[in-house]
């Protein structure tokens, strides 16, 4: 997923102003993938949300010293979200590869049971992780993550 361009950034402008403008665009990108990503079948939306979250995390990390006190909490929240989405993505990639190998061997092949068990484990783990993600997102919304980011990062450290 290509990052949305932040227009009009000025190399001579104060760092905090320009980083705040980048954060505003990246937050908008992250929230743009919901509610689609709440559907476990929306693999692309989940993947794109992971990438958008990573971009938001990095700009927050770069600006941690110049943003307001909420930046540290926001970095932790985005890292936790990114880790969860990363694990879901890993399960998607691994289960597809393992499933393909399980389907390529005969049922009476000695490798079949292990490959089938591994694929089933990955698929089950993915379902659990997605439920955790939906709960995590709901918690972010309840705690006003977006609103706090937009309001408190505007107050320089």
């Amino acid at each position, binding site marked *: 997923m290509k*990052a949305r361009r932040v227009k009009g*950034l*000025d*190399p*001579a*402008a*104060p*760092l*905090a102003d*320009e*980083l705040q403008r*980048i954060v505003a665009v990246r937050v908008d990108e992250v929230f743009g993938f919901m509610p689609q990503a709440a559907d476990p079948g929306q693999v692309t939306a989940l993947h794109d949300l992971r990438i958008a979250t990573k*971009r938001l995390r*990095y*700009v927050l*990390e*770069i600006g941690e*010293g*110049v943003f307001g006190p909420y930046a540290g909490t926001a970095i932790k929240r985005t890292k936790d979200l990114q880790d969860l989405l990363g694990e879901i993505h*890993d399960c998607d990639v*691994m289960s597809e*590869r*393992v499933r393909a*190998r*399980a389907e390529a061997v005969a049922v009476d092949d*000695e*490798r*079949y*049971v*292990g*490959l*089938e*068990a*591994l694929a089933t*484990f990955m698929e089950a783990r993915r379902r659990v992780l997605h439920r955790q993600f939906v709960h995590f997102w709901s918690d972010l919304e309840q705690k006003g993550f977006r609103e706090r980011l937009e309001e408190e990062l505007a107050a*320089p*450290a």
Partner: protein
Amino acid sequence: MAKAREIPGLRADLPYAAAAAATIRVRTQELFDHAEGVLDTSDIERVHDMRVATRRLRAALEIYGPCFEPRLYKGVLSEVKALADALGARRDPDVQLEGLEALAGTMGEAVKPGLEAFGAVLRGDQLAGNTTLAAALEHAGAHDLRGRLDALADGADNRMAA
């Protein structure tokens, strides 16, 4: 994972381009400090540390993009992305193998042939990833990635001086 080094003099009122120059210098140093021994498959943490350093440098390049000379920037960013991809190609199977070995320890004998078969696939990925990484490191050295990153930082500083 190593904590990111602090950027000296980074303040809210610092010009965006001056912050770009300072950040790229520190993140470049971090990257090359972690380059030693990354092709050693017996110590998987070296690859991890260099991958994290590459991610931080790439993020800084993207966030400070408008502060750099466009042509030089485009080539450097593309090379840092290629290095990050190569590090990922080595790191991903490292992690997957660790996970598979941990899982194998919790499962019965009947599943072992299948898990071992998939482990062999991942070890093949690991070797291929090492070849990809060796080529990316050689390319970065041959094309003076470090010198071009320094030139990018100098260019951002010069924009402020002009």
